[in-house]
């Protein structure tokens, strides 16, 4: 685990990181693993009053292994984890957080892994960073975790064969930029991953046409996913999409 802090203040909200290093050609998975696979999950054991969130998943990459498509990660990955230090924590005391992570790594075959995680926080009067490099890795990963952006709006419609994601971006994002973006659907088995999504442009609105797989229904009134918008010479925009499906 990445634990960049020399001390944490009572009541502070901090981010730790679960770091995974995979050998060449091995991968692990995003929330929606695609055609096969399984995302990592952690069961935490925490001292009283300490709140820990689930793994946060940076936007994945598409892994094509014909005839299948999966969404996941290769190489060196950090999954940020948010921790809320209890208000009543005593400076000078220690808080140990531990957990069991169950995850799956695959190349042509898959191996389930079970990893014990542990991390001790030293409570101080203020939060101090002791390992700037570790903190930079966590920040870097956090920047790739999809977030909602107020200046973007989404809606969706769904019929028997297709789903349309209607995107209204801020004024400085044009059709050419959107054409290079990638959408990762969160619902499993709903979208046919093999079919290349197609953009239609309609004034200030842009429509992403997604073919349904027929394998599963959306399972709710909201089309969710992550939209990765790459821009030349600027940091990518990593959007969390929650588009209400119009009746």
């Amino acid at each position, binding site marked *: 685990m990445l634990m960049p802090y020399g001390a944490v203040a009572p009541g502070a909200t901090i981010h730790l990181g679960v770091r995974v290093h995979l050998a060449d050609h091995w991968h692990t998975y995003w929330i929606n*693993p695609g*055609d*096969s*696979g*399984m995302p990592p*999950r952690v069961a935490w054991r925490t001292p009283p009053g300490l709140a820990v969130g689930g793994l946060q998943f940076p936007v994945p990459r598409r892994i094509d*292994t014909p*005839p*299948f498509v*999966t969404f996941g990660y290769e190489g060196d990955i950090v999954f940020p984890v948010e921790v809320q230090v209890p208000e009543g924590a005593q400076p000078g005391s220690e808080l140990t957080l531990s957990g069991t992570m*169950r995850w*799956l790594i*695959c190349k*042509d*075959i*898959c*191996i*389930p892994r079970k990893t014990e995680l542990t991390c001790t926080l030293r409570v101080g009067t203020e939060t101090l960073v002791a390992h700037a490099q570790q903190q930079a890795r966590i920040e870097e990963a956090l920047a790739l975790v999809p977030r909602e952006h107020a200046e973007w709006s989404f809606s969706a419609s769904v*019929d*028997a*064969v*297709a789903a349309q994601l209607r995107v209204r971006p801020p004024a400085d994002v044009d059709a050419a930029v959107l054409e290079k973006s990638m959408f990762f659907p969160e619902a*499993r*088995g*709903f979208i*046919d991953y*093999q*079919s*290349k999504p*197609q953009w239609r442009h309609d004034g200030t609105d842009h429509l992403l*046409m997604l*073919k349904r*797989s*027929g*394998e*599963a*229904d959306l399972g709710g009134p909201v089309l969710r996913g992550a939209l990765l918008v790459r821009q030349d010479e600027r940091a990518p925009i990593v959007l969390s999409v929650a588009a209400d499906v119009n009746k």
Partner: protein
Amino acid sequence: MKMKIHMTMAVAALVLGGWTLGAIADDHPPGEYKGPELSVPDLSGAIQTLQHQAGKIVVLEWTNYDCPFVKKHYSAGNMQELQKRYTGKGVVWWTICSSAEGKQGYYTAEKWKEMVEESGAASTATLLDVSGEAGRALSAKTTPHMFVIDRDGSIAYRGAIDNIRSTDPDDIEGAENFVAAALDALLQGEKVKVSKTAPYGCSVKY
């Protein structure tokens, strides 16, 4: 009804231009699609044909004994228990392996006989789809990937075995088993409530 579906698909193909429609099995709602021709050799080399099972409920279970998701259900005895329970009620249960020769999960028929014996599997037959033809015909993606075929040959359920997508046998007890639910409904002459879900598991090793 069938005609109508085809027209909708044609219109969609036109509108969406450039998209090739996936395997036919994926584009038909369950219950309205008659299963494809499916002829696969069993461990004795005899050809088993789905069409010959008309009038019976048939379960198709895609497997690969080396896949951790399959091991989850076999190490806990869950798959064997389901096989026993439903073959005991007259259901035909075919365990199908589509691993190509040289790929993970491929074994000769002789080796398979030993493995079936060892695992205590109680399916009606184990079928070796080495060419992958049957798997592709049904768009089998994962191991396990489960299909329940109704007496009239329509697909009553296809998808995951249950709703906890893990490799951990401890999760079986609290899971909702979609295959058992579909079979219970069909055996009682009721409508299958959940007729399709996204499967989970290892990829089929075509």
